[in-house]
């Protein structure tokens, strides 16, 4: 794989114009995600997390500041298919089976992938391997509506990893799942990520989830959203179930909760 990029956000400003009213979502926000770092953004609804995420992967034009993905702009990175995007809902194509859904992002905008020779080979092997690792081999030919919510989200994860993109962008991907499935998904995600070591920007509402997954948890609050805390997670890797009982985990959870409360006032 090519060298992993860092994400550098400087002075990011985004203003929404809704029926004549100016809504400043972000005003001069700075954030840096190091190459290969897993960073979670946590904060209340309306603090601009999703706006930030969409701006980073070139889905939203910005009104000020700059974003760079390594040496590329978000648009360039998008054109070269450098983002593995995981939206909030699984967003599977209902008319395609599991395998074809996992392959979906590979099969569109093919010319971009051809430029990156390292990603073109062994595609089919990769897909079957990925499907196996997310535990869906038996369901590979199943249609989305035959799957549970948790299984659908596994397909969504596999689809993002199938790109072997150097940057993963995830927008509350587990928010619709029940607590038990949700906890399982964290460890599945960590396992998949461990091999790619991609640079990750992960948005969540869930403090436990943020700590289990991340190298750093960034707390956003207010409107426009500002960084109110930046917590380095001092837990080793690989992380396994039971890590939630670690005293360090509890300390982090307490400080993040405090930051969220203070930011809210």
């Amino acid at each position, binding site marked *: 794989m090519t060298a992993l990029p860092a994400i550098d956000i400087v002075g990011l400003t985004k203003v929404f114009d809704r029926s004549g009213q100016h809504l400043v979502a972000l005003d001069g926000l700075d954030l840096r995600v190091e190459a290969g770092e897993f960073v979670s953004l946590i904060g209340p609804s309306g603090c601009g997390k999703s706006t930030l995420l*969409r701006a980073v*992967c*070139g*889905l939203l034009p910005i009104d000020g500041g700059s974003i760079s993905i390594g040496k590329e702009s978000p648009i360039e990175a*998008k*054109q070269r*298919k450098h*983002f593995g*995007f995981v*939206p*909030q*809902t699984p*967003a599977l*194509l*209902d*008319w395609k089976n599991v395998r074809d859904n996992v392959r*979906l*992002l590979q099969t*569109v*905008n093919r010319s*971009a992938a051809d430029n990156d020779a390292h990603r073109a080979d062994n595609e089919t092997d990769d897909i079957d391997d990925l499907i196996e690792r997310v535990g869906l081999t038996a369901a590979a030919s199943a*249609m*989305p*509506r035959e799957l549970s919510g948790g299984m659908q989200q596994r397909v969504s994860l596999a689809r993002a990893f199938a*790109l072997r993109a150097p940057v993963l*962008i995830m927008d509350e991907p587990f928010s619709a799942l029940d607590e038990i499935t949700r906890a399982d998904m964290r460890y599945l995600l960590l396992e998949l990520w461990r091999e790619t070591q991609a640079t990750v920007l992960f948005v969540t509402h869930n403090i436990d989830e943020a700590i289990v997954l991340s190298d750093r948890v960034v707390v956003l609050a207010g409107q426009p959203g500002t960084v109110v805390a930046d917590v380095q997670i001092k837990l080793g890797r690989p992380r396994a179930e039971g890590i939630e009982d670690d005293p360090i985990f509890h300390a982090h959870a307490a400080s993040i909760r405090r930051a969220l409360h203070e930011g809210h006032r």
Partner: protein
Amino acid sequence: MMRQRVLLSVAPFTGIAGFFALWELYVRLFDVRPLTLPAPSRIIVHVLENLGFYAENAVVTVTEAAIGLVLAFLIAMVVATAMAHSAFVERASWPVLVLIQSTPIVVLVPVFIRWLGFGMAPKIAIAALFAFVPFVSNAVTGLRSVDADRLDLLHSVDASDREIFWRLRLPSSLPSLFAAGRICIALALIGAVIGEYYGSSTAGLGTISQRAASRAFVDQQWGSIFVASFVGITATLLLLACERRVLRWHASTQQR
């Protein structure tokens, strides 16, 4: 459970059978004159005795309706795609569509005949006009109903507009297109029959119905009505069967 399912599956047939049984009973019980209302059994016997005649005329009507339907569908897809991509086109188009829909199309029959002659062409045009507006409005709804997350997903790898149309917008709109098709099949047939009825043709179910009416051929008048309904039901059932196959992935085709 099993009994419930069997009951539900025969329910539509009992409805039709009951309707005809009551009709038959009424005619026989009150000795209604055939000129006023013939018994359904009499009409069916008449149709079976003249099957070749009705088949010949039905083929003409079905051909006109089918070409009209396809034409309406193709033009509607082009219009709907333009409307779904541009708010200006959409806003500009709706008044025209409402105008078409609220025009009693029957009055346009003489106009179409003046333009297109006495052959199939004006009937095709009328059939197409009948089916056009429902197709457009459902297609616009379908093309617009694309889920935002799916759209973001494809945009995140810089998929082209063309890829997004073929891979996402069109398949997403299939359920509404089929729903429109179910309505439009019947509308196109009605359009073809009306075109024939008022359009002085030489063949078609509308033509033989109109001739029978003016000469008080009661059996033929009702025979053409029966055949037209039969054709409509058959076409709708064929489309439903097709929809079941194509939309197997969609929740609406699930067994209830």
